[in-house]
């Protein structure tokens, strides 16, 4: 059959071509990790490809934890060079790395990301404190000095200054790097503010004070499951879609996402501070987190352009206060100069403290 002969010969030709090309190593930088860092990383990758003679790096999303795990798989051209991360690397990741031969990792903090609360643009304005959000979404709240299951159905029930609107909060799902900062900076802070933390601590069980505090914190971050708090496991576009369908909802977004959708969203203040790159840089706005990427140092002189990409990323042209990343919503790191020195001198990160 001529068809069979044709396909067999084409297969053979392809196989020969393929094996010929395998011999050479990878030419492009390969990056993976956090979907929060992804837009920043693509902006830099694109500008890097345009202005240097190296190919444009390939950037994948997929999540901070998955990205770090992928970086720790080992050393070699078929492993990734950089893991983007919206939370700090853990000791467990570092142990995995070390056991797979990835001994030296460079930690680059390139800026901060704000977490904002926003509602439909035509709805009323919200002025929150962490305590308000705790009262809205926690499973158990403090009422008159006692812990009770949360039965609030309107914002005005616990804070007369807030509108009498049904409570519906779209929280980031537990898979998100955002969830960590949400739990710590909003829910746990609100737990302390409303006095629920002290009540939890009083009845907490544990061997020592530290164990008791951990138990109380764990009680704080239990969220209600009666439909007034919804965990969104997708990305911010899904949150926006849900908010569009239910105008009462309050969504949790990244600052950059909000800045791209100011015509649909009205941002809420936190402790009276409007979130903006300025108020986050000065630390006035409380809900923000650092953004990192981790570089596999064994690849620095192996993959062409890796060192140049990392230096370009932290340069003032990119990550500086007037660079394109800041325009997109990144809060520039005040210690960027120190990071630039660190990158130039290729300093590996020390043990976690």
């Amino acid at each position, binding site marked *: *059959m001529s*068809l*069979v002969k044709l*396909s*067999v010969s*084409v*297969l053979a030709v*392809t196989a020969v*071509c*393929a094996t*010929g*090309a*395998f011999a050479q190593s*990878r030419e*492009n930088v*390969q990056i*993976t990790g956090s*979907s929060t860092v*992804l*837009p920043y*990383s*693509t*902006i830099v*990758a*694109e*500008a890097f*490809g*345009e*202005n240097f*003679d190296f*190919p*444009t790096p*390939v*950037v*994948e*999303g*997929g999540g901070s934890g998955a990205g770090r795990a992928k970086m720790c*798989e080992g050393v*070699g*051209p*078929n492993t*990734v060079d950089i893991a983007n991360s919206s939370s700090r690397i853990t000791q467990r990741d570092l142990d995995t790395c070390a056991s797979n031969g990835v001994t030296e990792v460079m930690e680059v903090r390139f800026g901060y990301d704000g977490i904002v609360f926003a509602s439909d*643009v035509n709805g009323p304005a919200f002025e929150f404190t962490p305590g308000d959000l705790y009262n809205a979404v926690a499973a158990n709240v403090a009422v008159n000095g006692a812990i009770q299951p949360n039965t609030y159905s309107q914002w005005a029930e616990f804070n007369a200054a807030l509108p009498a609107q049904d409570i519906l909060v779209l929280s980031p799902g537990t898979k998100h790097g955002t969830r960590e900062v949400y739990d710590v900076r909003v829910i746990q802070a609100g737990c302390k503010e409303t006095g629920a933390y002290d009540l939890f601590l009083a009845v907490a069980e544990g061997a020592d004070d530290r164990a008791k505090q951990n138990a109380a914190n764990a009680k704080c971050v239990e969220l209600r499951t009666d439909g007034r708090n919804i965990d969104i496991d*997708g*990305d*911010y*576009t899904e949150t926006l879609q849900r908010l569009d369908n239910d105008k009462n909802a309050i969504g949790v977004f990244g600052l*950059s*996402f909000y*800045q*791209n*959708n*100011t*015509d649909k969203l009205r941002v809420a203040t936190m402790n009276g501070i409007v979130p903006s790159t300025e108020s986050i840089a000065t630390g006035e706005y409380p809900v923000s987190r650092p953004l990192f990427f981790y570089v596999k140092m064994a690849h620095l002189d192996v993959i062409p352009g890796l060192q140049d990409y990392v230096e370009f990323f932290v340069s003032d*042209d990119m990550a500086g206060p007037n660079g*394109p990343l800041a*325009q*997109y919503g990144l809060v520039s790191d005040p210690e960027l100069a120190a990071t630039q020195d660190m990158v130039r001198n290729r300093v590996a990160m020390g043990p976690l403290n």
Partner: protein
Amino acid sequence: MTDATSANVPAQPETSAPASSLLLQTDRMKRRNAAESRFKAYGIVAICVSLSVLFIMLWTIFSDGVSAFRQATFSFDVTLDAARLDPNGNRQRDEMMRVTTIGYTGLLNDNLIVYLNARAISTEGVTEREIAAFISRDTPARLRHMVIEDPSLLGQTIRFEGFATGRIDGYLKGRVTRDSAERDTNISVAQLDLADRMVDDGLLSLKFNWGFLTNPDASDQRPEASGLGVAMIGSAYMMLLVAIMVLPLGVSASIYLEEFAPKNRWTDLIEVNISNLAAVPSIVYGILGLAIFINFAQFPQSSPLVGALVLTLMTLPTIIIATRAAIRAVPPSIRDAAMGVGASKMQVVFHHVLPLAAPGILTGTILGLASALGETAPLLLIGMVAFVANYPSGPLDGGVLDPATALPVQVYSWASRADPAFIERSAGAIIVLLAFLLIMNILAIVLRRRFERRW
């Protein structure tokens, strides 16, 4: 006729006519007829529901996506100042590379303002920074590339075409309105007024956007410049490789199982396994591909080759099932006749059975390829759901090993970006994907109609 029978019915019990007649409706008959008409009604309702869902889906996709094929484009005179773009004046590529896109952005902005003044277009209420925000960030990069490739352009004044930014583009397409601009920090009403004046002058216009089909992906800051080029090449490479690998494997496996293999417990086991594999979720093949092709065989990540291998594994069971059905549909009398005139088993299969089964095999293969074309989940794990801005090289230069994405992947990654302009792009990509699927399905139908034989 129904009128006549129904008119007869009430009269029936009174007359002592024959106990049963075919012309009369008994109660049982009525119940059976009613059940039949109810069933027909359910069927019509089911079809109406599916049709309306399909219609709603297509309508949303097309109303969002058709505008992606048009793009607000500037066309104005740019003077390529040699002193700015080649400070040392010796036209050396290395030295010209030092002027980055930032330098070219400044040049373009200045030229646009000069051009606006020359055409006497009022820029009242708009700052220079806001005028600069009209030009896509992709435009300086294209101008820089043009100049570096052809330094003789330096010093000349050329007519340059560049994209406008996503918000201006959205205004020309009706996505951005004056109401939304008032609330939007990325655009002001004054800028929209200026855009109106530019359109009146002919400086800014909506043009057909070939770039949407040919450009590579672009970052979140320049939705207007993003295109499907890399995704289409990646999908094409994968479909080519899948077709090359899946046809010989699938056809030879089916011929052996159907014509030569003895019927025993082993072949039964194989048969059950093939049917089971056809129902395995596609993501499982992605995990398999990551373990075998990337971690063990050390094939490069994000490459169409690995994608094609994974998709081949995924479509193989479907194609074996379709091919075996096609071979089984060839009547045994043909085999018997060939055997009767002294053909060997091999001759029977290759001279008679396979040519007669070919249309069915091709149809099955094309439908299998179509489902592979729309697959995203297995590609997620082998690194093809990524931002790839460089075209892979040609198929004979090892292009199947270069990083690439695929059409459904592009739909997914655009749908999750922050800038609202990407919603339009995402829907536009769906239209392109649907067009390819439609072409493949039509091809399958035409092949079947043309070559099918009935006995």
